[in-house]
């Protein structure tokens, strides 16, 4: 709203200039902070006479990010990983001090396991695994001829990395920090107003299917982004950490409400398609109080709190209306459709209330009340993908190690180290081959510049201040590139290559032969990392993995049907969202793959939720023993159909649901079960959903009429 006012009063050209300048300023601030961190770290490390100040300086390059919360989060996990890696290094050396071959095998295995662990997590947790892997190699490889030295090596590495982390953390957090907290707030508010706006805007009833799919996509992205941000911000802001559980709860309720909302609209769409306009219109009419309750300008500063009483009133009105409308139905069929929809609508109203309630607690200035309900955001992990990463890293290390031993290459250790670091660092990116290639180019540039800097500039200079002045011109462009999206890889490689090859020490050595040999070894290491990614391609993004992820998504229905009930709602929602967003990130938007995926996700979401509600109702009430087998039949056949969809099991599932509906109708007092069953039934018979491919050729309109 304010944006359009703004553009009206200020000329476009000036706005463009202001925005460009702001962007430029933030890039230069990043460059200045990073350079400051690098050189302060180097200075302290030299004053403390650490064995390799360049390691500490490289650490600051690796954790550099424009946002302080990201730096702190990455630093935290880097520290964790380094400590674990140091422990593993000492353990490996202690186990095989004399046998170099066994020792290399053990090291490769450790690296592989860490790389595999890294693919199981997203965020910076993956990074901790990577670090645990290559830190062990960094500590162990240089002392391979001298096992007792491992302890000193570990302590030195720990001190250097921790120093780098401390300095870059302090500088990024204190000097003109740019906060992720603000981004988190913005995106939480955005999620809230976007969702409420969508709910308000859909009062007219039917939303076209593709609009619904897009909205679903947007909501899923919002939920996952919020969770990612939350996990970084807790390092930056103590207050957000205290509210972290509230935020999780907020996100979970968001997911629950958006799923119910989807189901509701699909139901209305289906009724319209089946020409059951009376029931559909009655539902849309019933929905109206909710839309009216949300008709409040939220920017007034009062926040979500004002909505709560209005929602309560609306829910009450909906209940009353429902009774009234129900009395007006003459047709049995219409009545059933309406009841199914009305119960869904009331469920949605309840979930919406909970969601707004969570939002208003978050907006409250003080943290009120005791502990909140603990919820977790579960992730959908693929263990086979992790296995591939493990195998690739282990194999790369074994091949390089064997080559090193066989060729007795003096600088083989250097090549091995670089390969380890890069194979680990980039194993978790979506397109490791490209990223590693970019970094390799950057690394080459950095090393050529490093050669010039080392032998033509640094030899002329004396003292730390002059050294900084001498290195700065070579480094600054690399760091600047790091800030950009497109050239980030090259910039990272540039800065790393330069600092790595300069290898600052208190007693700088100038030996061209060693310099060039080392450079060659590092290039070989980088190349082997690239080759390993090409030879054993990462499963991420491949059709094979997408099929597996799709299968995992469908398997969620089986989870909903079979997993133990406590906490199942949260688990189902969060794993669903995580899986879905993983696949969305890896498919071309608008492609056939992507559309199939979204269609499946909607079906899984809807059916899974209905099954969970059904199971909750089954657990709550007393079921007649004759009824239970029918309901269990529904759960089992649906789970089987979704795990392995084919026409035969589709028919089984459809018949099981029909039988269960008939069974429940025969018993008095179990009508609440019917609503979930009918919902499942309608989802199964939806001729426009992805399930249509498994249906026998009967017109859907007739089916719906026949169904309930």
């Amino acid at each position: 709203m304010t944006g359009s006012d703004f553009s009206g009063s200020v000329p476009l050209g000036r706005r463009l200039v202001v925005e460009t300048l702001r962007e430029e300023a933030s890039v230069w601030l990043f460059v200045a902070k990073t350079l400051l961190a690098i050189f302060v770290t180097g200075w302290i490390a030299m004053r403390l006479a650490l064995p390799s100040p360049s390691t500490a300086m490289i650490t600051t390059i690796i954790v550099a990010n424009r946002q302080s919360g990201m730096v702190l989060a990455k630093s935290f996990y880097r520290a964790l990983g380094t400590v674990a890696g140091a422990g593993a290094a000492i353990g490996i050396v202690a186990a095989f001090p004399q046998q170099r071959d066994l020792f290399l095998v053990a090291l490769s295995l450790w690296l592989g396991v860490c790389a595999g662990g890294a693919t199981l997590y997203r965020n910076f947790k993956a990074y901790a695994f990577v670090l645990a892997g290559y830190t062990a190699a960094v500590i162990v490889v240089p002392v391979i001829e001298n096992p007792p030295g491992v302890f000193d090596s570990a302590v030195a590495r720990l001190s250097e990395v921790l120093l780098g982390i401390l300095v870059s953390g302090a500088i990024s957090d204190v000097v003109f920090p740019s906060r992720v907290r603000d981004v988190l707030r913005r995106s939480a508010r955005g999620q809230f107003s976007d969702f409420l706006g969508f709910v308000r805007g859909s009062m007219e009833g039917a939303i076209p299917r593709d609009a619904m799919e897009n909205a679903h996509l947007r909501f899923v992205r919002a939920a996952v982004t919020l969770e990612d941000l939350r996990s970084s911000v807790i390092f930056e802001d103590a207050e957000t950490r205290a509210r972290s559980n509230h935020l999780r709860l907020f996100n979970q309720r968001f997911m629950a409400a958006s799923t119910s909302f989807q189901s509701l609209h699909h139901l209305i769409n289906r009724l319209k398609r089946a020409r059951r306009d009376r029931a559909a219109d009655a539902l849309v009419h019933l929905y109206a109080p909710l839309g009216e309750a949300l008709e409040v300008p939220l920017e007034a500063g009062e926040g979500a709190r004002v909505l709560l009483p209005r929602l309560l009133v609306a829910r009450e009105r909906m209940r009353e209306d429902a009774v009234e409308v129900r009395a007006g139905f003459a047709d049995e069929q219409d009545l059933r459709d309406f009841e199914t929809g009305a119960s869904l609508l009331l469920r949605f109203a309840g979930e919406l209330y909970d969601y707004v309630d969570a939002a208003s607690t978050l907006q409250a200035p003080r943290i009120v009340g005791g502990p909140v309900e603990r919820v977790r955001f579960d992730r959908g992990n693929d263990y086979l993908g992790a296995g591939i990463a493990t195998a690739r890293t282990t194999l790369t290390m074994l091949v390089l190690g064997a080559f090193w031993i066989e060729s007795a290459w003096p600088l083989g250790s250097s090549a091995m180290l670089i390969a380890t670091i890069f194979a680990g660092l980039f194993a978790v990116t979506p397109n490791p081959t490209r990223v590693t290639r970019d970094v390799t180019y950057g690394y080459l540039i950095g090393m050529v510049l490093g050669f010039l800097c080392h032998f033509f500039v640094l030899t002329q200079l004396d003292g730390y201040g002059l050294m900084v002045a001498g290195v700065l011109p070579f480094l600054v462009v690399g760091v600047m590139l790091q800030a950009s999206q497109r050239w980030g890889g090259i910039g990272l490689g540039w800065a790393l290559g330069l600092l790595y090859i300069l290898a600052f020490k208190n007693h700088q050595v100038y030996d061209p032969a060693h310099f060039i040999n080392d450079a060659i070894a590092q290039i070989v290491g980088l190349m082997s990392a690239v080759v390993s990614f090409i030879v054993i391609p990462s499963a991420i993004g491949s059709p094979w993995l997408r099929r597996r992820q799709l299968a995992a998504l469908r398997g969620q229905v089986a989870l909903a049907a079979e997993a133990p009930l406590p906490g199942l709602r949260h688990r189902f929602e969060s794993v669903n969202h995580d899986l879905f967003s993983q696949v969305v990130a890896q498919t071309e938007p608008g492609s056939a793959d992507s559309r199939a995926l979204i269609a499946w996700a909607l079906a899984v979401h809807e059916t899974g939720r209905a099954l969970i509600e059904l199971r909750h109702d089954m657990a709550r009430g007393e079921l007649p023993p004759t009824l239970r087998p029918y309901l269990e039949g529904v759960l089992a056949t649906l789970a089987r159909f979704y795990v392995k969809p084919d026409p035969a099991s589709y028919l089984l599932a459809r018949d099981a649901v029909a039988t269960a509906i008939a069974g429940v109708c025969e018993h008095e007092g179990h009508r609440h079960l019917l609503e979930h069953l009918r919902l499942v039934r309608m989802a199964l018979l939806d001729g426009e959903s992805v399930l249509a491919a498994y249906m026998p050729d009967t017109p859907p309109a007739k089916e719906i009429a026949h169904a309930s």
Partner: protein
Amino acid sequence: MPREIALGDALVPGLLVLFVLALLALWLLDWLAGRFGLYRLVWHPTLFRLAAFVCVFGAFALFLN
């Protein structure tokens, strides 16, 4: 307290151990401050946090003399 601390049979620089301890202490302080919203009373929370860390680490380091 000696300058180097023996963990098992290995000598670790005392400063490194104290550094980790100081980080833990800071974490605890941070948690308390966040829980009760104390950072609202401070002009520059992160600077305050850094200063608190320096004080804690410095106080610990005095043990080494």
